């Protein structure tokens, strides 16, 4: 890759924001994300009914009393949807940050060190890419018990290789740049060069990657819960879909609203991620989003 190309791939923060601002889909995505974040943070204030509390009012259709209706045990679907945002966002963000961190560490080290270390780390990355993520998470959840911490660990372990590959490729091209050479000539240590000179230039790419990853993780988590492998201590969208499937014939609202919530949240994340990608690299024209479930 020549220098002109690499420069084109790392525009200034201002350029990214300007290009992002023009994209109306992305702005709508940001607004939607803000709504979901509010729902997650202020769940107790927005939905005052306890989402786990059973009541006599079983399978009631949506009404002014029960905005999204109730499920078979009389639990309020609206409360479940609002509180479920907490579970999805917590797991999605935690996994994306954890695996992003591992990926950056491995990718940056491999790309900067090169040689044998690079070889070794890349073989390791490939090894982690083979077992299909969804099935690995499923088996681990079945064997070790499906608590949030198990899910977070197993998903983080399976998602980092993507970030590692991306970061490595980017570091490989940036480390040949003249300003990196200048820093080296001035006697900066490798750690300092990586942290202060190279990483700031890779950061936009990492952020885009992490945003797109959150959506993927939320879908996988919902898929596992849908199959009945959930943490039963908290109500989640996937659990509501799992439970509501039995009433699909007579009570569409029990699965409709949680399904809508997952779809809208992931849609918003993908739209924002796409726009970031486009702003970073106009030539890419829509990167490959990974859809696991």
């Amino acid at each position, binding site marked *: 890759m020549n220098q002109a190309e690499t420069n084109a791939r790392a525009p200034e923060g201002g350029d990214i924001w300007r290009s992002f601002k023009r994209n109306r889909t992305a702005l709508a995505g940001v607004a939607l994300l803000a709504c979901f974040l509010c729902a997650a943070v202020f769940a107790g204030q927005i939905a005052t009914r306890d989402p786990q509390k059973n009541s006599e009012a079983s399978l009631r259709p949506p009404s002014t009393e029960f905005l999204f209706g109730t499920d078979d045990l009389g639990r309020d679907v609206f409360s479940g949807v609002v509180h479920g945002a907490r579970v999805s966002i917590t797991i999605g963000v935690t996994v994306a940050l954890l695996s992003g961190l591992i990926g950056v560490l491995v990718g940056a080290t491999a790309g900067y060190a090169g040689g044998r270390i690079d070889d070794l780390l890349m073989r390791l990355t490939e090894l982690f890419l083979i077992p*299909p993520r969804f*099935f690995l998470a499923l088996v681990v959840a079945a064997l070790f018990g499906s608590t949030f911490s198990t899910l977070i660990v197993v998903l983080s372990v399976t998602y980092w290789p993507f970030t590692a590959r991306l970061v490595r490729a980017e570091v490989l091209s940036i480390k040949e740049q003249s300003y990196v050479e200048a820093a080296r000539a001035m006697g900066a240590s490798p750690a300092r060069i990586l942290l202060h000179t190279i990483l700031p230039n890779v950061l936009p790419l990492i952020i885009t990657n992490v945003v797109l990853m959150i959506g993927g993780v939320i879908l996988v988590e919902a898929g596992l819960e849908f199959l009945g492998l959930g943490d039963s201590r908290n109500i989640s969208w996937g659990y509501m879909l799992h439970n509501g499937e039995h009433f699909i014939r007579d009570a569409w609202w029990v699965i409709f609203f949680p399904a809508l919530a997952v779809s809208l949240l992931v849609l918003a994340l993908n739209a924002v991620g796409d726009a970031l990608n486009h702003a970073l690299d106009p030539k890419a024209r829509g990167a490959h989003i990974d*859809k696991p479930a």
Partner: protein
Amino acid sequence: MRLRRRLISRLSGRLLIKRALQSALLILALVIINFLLIHLAPGDPVHLLAGQSGDEKYFAFIRAKFGLDRPLTTQLWIYLTSVLRGDFGYSLGYQQPVIAVITARIPATLLLMLSAVSLSSVAGVVMGVEAARRENSFIDRALNAFALLGHSVPSFSIGHLLLIVFALRLGLFPAQNMSSSQQVLTGAAYWLDVLWHLALPVATLAIVYLAQIMRLTRTAMLGVLGENFITAARAKGLAEGRVLYGHALRNALLPIVTVVGNDFGMLLSGAVLVETVFAWPGLGRLMLDALAMRDYPVLMGLFLMISMSVVVVNFVTDLSYAALDPRISYGRTRR
């Protein structure tokens, strides 16, 4: 000249052997991962190797068979050799060897996946090419919005939607299973019945894959359309259709095949989720039943076989490059 050709053929033959060896090593690693999972999981590994429902006598037999009182390395060796001999254990729930339980379900899943992949490949490629041809037009935006939606809605929710509308409300298609249970059908009537049951699950899965393939085709086409040889083909006066579908698509096909081949595990997980919605009697249904019955030998066997198939499909994808890209050849010399 002949010497050079022989040299190239030998080199690429070596490359082929190298890739095959790498795949074999990966499969070995997968078996070891499986072994480690069984031993790291809380509880007695005998339950994972035998299943929950056995009695003490059976547990003793399994303990002896897998050498559970011997050192871990010996156990790993026993486990490895039995898996490589094709012994994936025995399912008490089905009263059959695990391998027989699994292989009995493969045709149903394969039928579902192959139908969906072929449908969505044709439609997705055409949609991707047309979107790329009119970049930023209304059609392009609409197709992109559709792809974004297809990426964001969970596959089982797409299934639920089709199920509610076309099976429960309109009653056009059956909601569950692979064939009608009321009457015994044979021959053509049986296959028509299966096809009728196949419609909704295939449509669901095809929508999921379609979004992926359409997006990839569009990106790949946009990359290729700027190349000199396209300008040259146009300058020669070739019809635009031939330029797009003849010249450009042939070159854009490579990245598409790569991703479809490399994402085989993802395609399979989509199929598993869709199967559970329509009670399609394939691997997904089997996995769900194994989870519910805590039939661990079947569950672990499924995981192992699915991961192995991913390695094999990746290997085949690498080989299919040779057929598609004239610049790469593995062993065969092009005439």
